[in-house]
Structure formats: C-alpha cells, structure tokens
C-alpha cells in the first residue's frame, strides 16, 4: 500500500469536511427544546460569599431556572485524577473543588451561579440582575509570597498554601558531587504562565431522556470516556450505561480539553432538573478565566561539572503553581512529567529535584502541550548553555560530550526512566548541518554591519510519551490506568470500521490510523473509517494527550488487527481445505505459499457474515475484534533544535532569522502530518519564548484576559521552518513509533532564549526570562549598559 500505507504523506480524510465548513463541532449542535446556560463568575480573586439574591433573575424574561451551590447539594466536587505524596510520605492536600462556589470564591472566573433561559442573551441579561454580596479578602497571587508563614490561605481547611513538597533522586549523592565539582553553574529562571487558547472555545450540551433515565453530554473533550468515568462515578452518581459522552469534532485542545470542567457537570445535571437540553458555550473571555492554564514554575537549577565539561550532578528546586483548585491531572505535571525528564539526553550520573506545589488565587493550572517536559527541558537546556558559557565551551560540543551514547541503550537514568532507544548525536549533527552552524560567524558579521546583534541557540530535548504503563503510573499516584482500546469491525463486504479510544482534535487520526489499517490489512484506504469521540460507539478509551495516540492507541488497533488476521486464517484454512498453519496473509490475500490457492480479504469477510461454508462448530461467525493495549514503557522522542535570531538593540525586537528542527519520532506514519505537528508545536514554544505571558495583578485580577491583552503568535511573528527527522525505532511497540505531538513546544523555548542570550552576550546581558518581549530585551540591554 505504497501510496496510502505507512510512510506516505496521504492527504487527510477529515479535510474534505473541514475546508467546506462541514465539520460538526459541539457548538454547531442545537437540540430541540434546548435552553441556554449563562454562568455568573466571580469578579474577585478571593472573597467570602455572604449571600446571593437571585429573585430578580428568576423573574427575568425567558428565564427557566437559576441555580446556586445550594441547589446542587447532592452533587460531588470535581475530582482530581492523580495523588502525589510529599517527601515525608504524606498525601498531597486535596481541598474540595466545588462545581459552584460554596461560601467562598477563590479566583476570578470561579463559577457562582447559573441562569437557564430560552436564549443566550436572555440568560446573560438575567445574570446581570443577580446580587452577590461579596466580602472581599486578600488574594494570594505570587507563589513566593504564598509559601511564607502567615500568608493568606487559599483554602482554610488546608492551613498553608502548599499542596505537596515532593522530591526525586539521591540528594546525598548529589550534594557530595557538588561539593567535589570543578565548576558549578547556577541559574534562577521563571517558566512563564501560559493560557492554552485552542481557537474553539469550550462548549457543553447536556441532554436527559426522562423516559429511559439516559443522560447525554456533548462536549469539547480530548477524552470522552475519562469524562464519563469522572462525572458519572464521582460527581453525579450516574452509572456508565445511563451516561453517554460525545465529543464530536473538537477545535484544538493542547491539553486544555483533557480536564473535567464544572460546566460539563452543570449542563448535564441541569438537563435532568429542567427536563430539557441545556447548552453552554464559552465566550473567549470565559476561556481565559476558566480553561486550565499551563506552566508557571519558578526554579533554581545548578549543574556540577568536571574540568572537561562532563556533567557530574544536577540539582533543582521549583515552586509550581496549582492555581486555586487541583485540576484533573495537575499534581503529576510538575512531578512525574517534569522531575523524571531531568536527565535529558545526558549521562548525568546523579540528579535531585524538589518541587513545592502551591495554591494561589488564580485559575487552576494543568497540562498544556508538553506538560512538565517543556519546563524540564527549558531549565536543563538553559543551565547547559550557562555551563558552556562559564567553561568557555562550544554549545554543541558540551552537549556532544555528555550525550548518552547509542550503545548505552536501554539506559537507566537517575530519575526513574529507562530510555529504550535513541541516537542523540545523529540528530544534533543533522540539525547543525541544516542550520549551517559552522557558517554562523559570517552571518553574525553581516548583522553587525547592519547594526544588529545575531545569536544562535541550541536545545537538545527528550520527552517521555506514549503515556503510560498502568502499573508504573498507578504506583506513582495515578487514579486510572493509561492503556488504550480499539475495536476493528470488518463489515460483510470487506470495508472496515475502527472504533478507537484515542480522540482526534486536529491530529489527523482518521487518516493516520487508516494508513496503518490499510498497510496491515492490505485493503483500500478509502474503505476504512475511523470512529472516535463517542462512548456509545467505542468500547473504552483513555483519550488523547501526552503524544500517546499512535504509540498506545495505534498499537491497540494493530493488536486488534492481529486478532482479525488470526481468525481470518482459520476461515481461509476451512475454505481452502488446508490446515491453518499453512496459511499466510500478505497484501490483502490469505495464501497457501507455493500453491495458487488464495482467498482475498473481502471473501473471508463475506464468509464470516454469510457462513454457508464455515467451520461453525469451531468458530463463531462475524469478524470483529477488540484489543486493550497497555504500554510496556514510555516512548522517548528526542531531537535538537537550532534557532538563529537577530536582535535590534535600539528597539529590543527579536526576529527569528531561521529555525531548524531535527526530531527522532521513531517510525513516521505520515510525514506531512508529523511535520505539521512540529510546526504547530514550534510556534506555541516560540509564542512562550517571545510573546505569551499570563499576567495577574497583586489583587488577582487577570490582566491578560482577552486577545487584546494576551499576545498570541500571528503569522507575521514567526518564520517558515526546516524540519527533518532521524529514526531510531521504539523497541517496545509493534509500529516502532514514539509520538510527535508535543516535541515542538518542548524543544523550542530554550533554543530561542539561548539564541537571544547568545546575541546579547556581546552587550553584557547574561539572563533573561520569557517572554522576551521587545520591552524586556530593551530593558535588559539598558540595565547591562548601566552596570
């Protein structure tokens, strides 16, 4: 299947509907008899709610109902999916996350009341007449303030603002290595808080059939089965067979649509209360105040080196912002998705990391594209660069000297992970060549003549994807397994429907997964349909995040296909009057090698459903198989990014002159799609490095609460990219794939900042935090000149 199989840049199936505006996103749905929900949110970061007077709102035109937390007394809090333990063995603080505020609001945007009305504008108008008597309290916004004694508590029942105080690694060995080191490099840095901003705002529609007791939630989710599990079991007390969760076309997620949100609960519960469908769609201002934010770490990192620039030890201490409540996967992001990545591509013998997770009066923070791994990569690749500069070493050479070597795999890191395969020098070499690293000096000289400062920066990243082996994550505090499921249904005339628990919200699974099926079954690409996003159609699923879909979901499909082929061989043996052991399956044909006997895949499918000549005594009719696949290990994509910038010292403006990415994603199914994933990730990473930054004032007001205030990367802000791959195959899944969704966002921020600092080194600037806005760069240059 050369032109539609594995390795082909097949044009996407899903695009035919999307380019015609025929996609079906949640907000495109309108159910007969639906009412519209408007959610009144807190304007204060921290306040006691003395009273809520809804009488005027209830009398509003078109108003159907008004609810506050008192009406939802039977509804549980929003659960957290991961429990982290502190160094002393105690479980993390896990305060209740109510659906609607109970006596207190804890961030701007915290839901307080819900109005249902015949139209959206009527609901909004009525909400304006709700009178909430707030007693405004001091807000705690800055993490460093939040952890001091006597700081205002976000949660009275927790007492402090520390959720957990976690550590990983051998502290004693690290301290000893530092005390004996030839050189120690130190860096304080901030990983800026980001707002994910998928262009489709979240939307949720609840529906209830009182005759059957069946609830349905249509929602913008990356993992509908997870939402069904969390909301059904922990919040509303609905069994799975009475709750369908449907996530149709979803307009981007980047992590922000993994989590279980209050609005999903509100519309589902309210539909049962008023016995009508209830629809809520966020406007963008609500997205800024209610979608989980990302990153937000404050870190000190130190690297110990010997006289040859070999890394001896790494030590890191981080404050990680949780926001006001624990979002679904928030606790694992700064710990098991961060601390475990600190070896990077290097054979650093000992590493110690400690993370304090902190409650503040801000929107909850959770996984955003990369989730913990960008934070780890940023601090590591920044301190490696500082060390190179301290030691007078070339940026590429210090990395090369410390890389784990190809013959050292499988490689046990000092921070728990076992890397299966990789060849880091191959990616570095390819990226340096593409970037003409050797010719940088002449380009720098040309920039100098034009009055510009030119710099080059390298980042060599690793990520852990294919999340994740269930027994491992279970031992680390995950409250769910992280396998994936697939059903491959061969229809009677030979077409194939694949029901996958992975969810596509831009990744192109309908194409990539069909390529895998086409290759494995030797059948026409157009006769394969990939079905996702509906708990009524799909056996089960854990969804899409952590670059896991092809490695975990794809493997579940392959395993189901293997079962189909095994059964097909039995059927073929019967039809060809030979033994099963004599049958081989190749290019869509069941053949007896060395003979002219064969049966096409379609003939076997038909025989399975019209079993006139069929071994009915030994074999059931039909041809449909399900597989659940639990990964044996994480996968470890890795690569090197080289960024070159030109800085205008008069304005502080940074222009990205070129950006070269070389990634090892293992086997690539569709190069066109993979390149697209890298492009998108790079721009999110460049956005973090240059433009994006969530900003709160001291009172906890969100200053960056719209596209007027939060700088999203636009087309003219970024260049075109050169992207390329090297390949070492993943050793523990049958496709040899590693995953590609997050790499761009992980590797690019340190590449950009290293490049800028390289450019600014000639004017004496040695440190700069993201985002490197023109003002910040200009100020750094002026400050360096003044000192």
């Amino acid at each position: 299947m050369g032109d539609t199989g594995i390795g082909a840049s097949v044009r996407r199936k899903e695009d035919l509907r999307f380019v015609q505006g025929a996609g079906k996103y949640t907000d495109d749905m309108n159910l007969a008899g639906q009412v519209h929900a408007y959610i009144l949110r807190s304007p204060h970061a921290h306040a006691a709610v003395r009273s809520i007077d809804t009488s005027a709102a209830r009398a509003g035109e078109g108003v159907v109902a008004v609810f506050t937390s008192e009406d939802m007394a039977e509804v549980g809090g929003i659960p957290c999916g991961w429990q982290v333990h502190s160094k002393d063995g105690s479980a993390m603080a896990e305060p209740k996350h109510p659906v609607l505020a109970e006596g207190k609001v804890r961030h701007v945007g915290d839901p307080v009341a819900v109005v249902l009305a015949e139209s959206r504008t009527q609901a909004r108008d009525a909400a304006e007449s709700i009178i909430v008597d707030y007693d405004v309290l001091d807000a705690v916004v800055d993490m460093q303030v939040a952890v001091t004694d006597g700081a205002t508590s976000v949660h009275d029942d927790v007492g402090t603002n520390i959720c957990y105080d976690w550590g990983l690694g051998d502290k004693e060995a690290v301290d000893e290595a530092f005390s004996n080191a030839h050189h120690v490099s130190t860096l304080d840095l901030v990983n800026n808080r980001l707002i994910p901003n998928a262009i489709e705002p979240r939307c949720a529609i609840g529906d209830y059939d009182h005759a059957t007791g069946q609830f349905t939630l249509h929602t913008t989710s990356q993992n509908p089965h997870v939402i069904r599990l969390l909301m059904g079991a922990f919040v509303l007390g609905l069994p799975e067979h009475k709750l369908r969760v449907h996530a149709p076309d979803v307009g981007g997620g980047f992590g922000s649509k993994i989590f279980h949100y209050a609005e999903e609960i509100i519309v589902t519960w309210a539909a049962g209360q008023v016995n009508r469908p209830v629809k809520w769609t966020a406007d963008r201002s609500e997205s800024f105040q209610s979608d989980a934010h990302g990153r937000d770490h404050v870190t000190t990192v130190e690297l110990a080196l010997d006289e040859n620039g070999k890394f001896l030890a790494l030590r890191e201490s981080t404050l990680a912002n949780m926001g006001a409540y624990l979002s679904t996967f928030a606790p694992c992001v700064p710990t098991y998705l961060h601390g475990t990545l600190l070896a990077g591509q290097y054979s650093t013998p000992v590493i110690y990391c400690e993370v304090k997770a902190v409650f503040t009066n801000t929107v909850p923070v959770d996984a955003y594209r990369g989730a913990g791994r960008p934070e780890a990569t940023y601090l590591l690749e920044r301190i490696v660069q500082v060390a190179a500069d301290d030691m007078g070493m070339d940026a590429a050479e210090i990395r090369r000297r410390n890389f784990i070597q190809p013959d050292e795999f499988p490689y046990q890191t000092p921070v728990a992970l076992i890397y299966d395969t990789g060849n880091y020098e191959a990616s570095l070499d390819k990226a340096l060549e593409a970037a003409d690293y050797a010719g940088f000096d002449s380009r720098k000289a040309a920039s100098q003549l034009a009055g510009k400062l030119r710099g080059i920066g390298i980042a060599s990243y690793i990520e852990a994807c294919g999340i994740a082996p269930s027994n491992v994550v279970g031992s680390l505090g995950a409250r769910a397994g992280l396998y994936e499921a697939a059903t491959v249904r061969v229809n009677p005339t030979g077409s194939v429907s694949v029901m996958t628990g992975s969810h596509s919200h831009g990744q192109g699974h309908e194409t990539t997964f069909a390529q895998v099926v086409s290759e494995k079954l030797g059948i026409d690409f157009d006769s394969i349909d990939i079905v996702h996003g509906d708990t009524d159609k799909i056996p089960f699923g854990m969804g899409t995040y952590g670059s896991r879909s092809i490695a975990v979901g794809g493997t579940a499909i392959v395993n189901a296909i293997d079962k189909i082929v095994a059964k097909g061989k039995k059927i073929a043996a019967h039809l060809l009057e030979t033994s099963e052991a004599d049958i081989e399956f190749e290019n869509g044909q069941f053949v007896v090698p060395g003979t002219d006997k064969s049966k096409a895949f379609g003939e076997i499918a038909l025989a399975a459903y019209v079993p006139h000549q069929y071994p009915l005594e030994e074999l059931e009719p039909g041809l449909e198989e399900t597989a659940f696949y639990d990964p044996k290990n994480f996968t470890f994509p890795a690569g090197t990014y080289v960024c070159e910038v030109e800085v205008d010292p008069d304005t502080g403006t940074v222009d990205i002159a070129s950006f070269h990415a070389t990634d090892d994603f293992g086997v690539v199914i569709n190069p066109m799609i993979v390149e697209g994933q890298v492009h998108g990730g790079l721009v999110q990473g460049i956005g973090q490095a240059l433009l994006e930054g969530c900003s709160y004032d001291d009172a906890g007001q969100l200053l960056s609460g719209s596209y007027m205030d939060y700088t999203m990367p636009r087309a003219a802000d970024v260049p075109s990219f050169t992207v390329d791959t090297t390949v070492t195959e993943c050793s523990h899944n049958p496709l040899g794939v590693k995953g590609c969704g997050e790499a761009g966002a992980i590797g690019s921020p340190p590449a950009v900042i290293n490049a800028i600092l390289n450019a600014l080194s000639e004017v004496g600037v040695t440190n700069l935090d993201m985002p490197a806005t023109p003002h910040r760069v200009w100020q750094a240059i002026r400050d360096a000149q003044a000192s």
Partner: protein
Amino acid sequence: MSVTVSMIVNGNSVSAEVDPRTLLVDFLRVDQRLTGTHVGCDTSQCGACVVHVNGKSVKSCTMLAAQADGAEVTTIEGLAIDGELHPMQEAFRQNHGLQCGFCTPGMIMSALDLVNVNSNPSEQEVREWLEGNLCRCTGYHNIVKSIQAGAEAMREV
C-alpha cells in the same frame, strides 16, 4: 422588538425577523444553520468568523445582521460548486493547511480576499495579510504555503 433583515447568502435570498442586536455571525450560524462560520473570540481578533459581504472579507462577529440588510454574503459553504472544491479549498487540503479545522473557514475566506487584491502574494505579504486570523495548530507554515498555492491555482483558472 425585532427587525426584518433580507440578504442574499451563497446565492439564495433569505429573510428573517431578528432581535436588532443579532450579530451577522449568529444570523448565519443560528438562523441560517450555516455553521461553517465559527466564533473563536469576543473581541474581533481571531478571524474564525470571516465571511464576504459584497465581495470583501468581513469579521461577521463585528457586524450586525441588520447592517448586512440587502447585502450579498458568501460563507465557506458557498465556495464549492457541485461538490467540487474551490482551488483555495483544494490548496489547503493538498498542503496540510489545517489541523483541527476551526480557524480554516475564516482563513480561506480571508485568503480569497487577499487574492482578489493581490493575485501573486509573497510569503511576507501573506503573513501580514493574516494579521486578523489566528491559528493555534499549524504554526502558519502550511497555511502560508496553501494560500500561495491556492493563489497560483486561481491564476491558472
């Protein structure tokens, strides 16, 4: 209180009684069930709602339906003829100029207006033209390629 608005949408005459504050985008999405035009923000920044009004690209979240009374409106649904994609739609498909597809209708409608005023735009001209269209998935790389390829295909028609 309501007002009557009448316009030609994708070649069809339509008329409806609407609340005077109804935005053109809501008129198209809710009243006309043309859900290909999307809403991605509330400050007229994202461009997911771009349609053509009397041949020019307009953010339909920035215009009242009543202001489009008597106008000729084209949405993404009006581009393909008898199931055959417009060259710009085909260019987006061939060049992987979309991922989640949410910004895509606005991107394509905006791109067509660019080609109307500049039939052979450079990469930089495309990037600057897209000042009012946000995409979070593609990093713009393949959108720029798509628009240049679409412009080329339209020159050849």
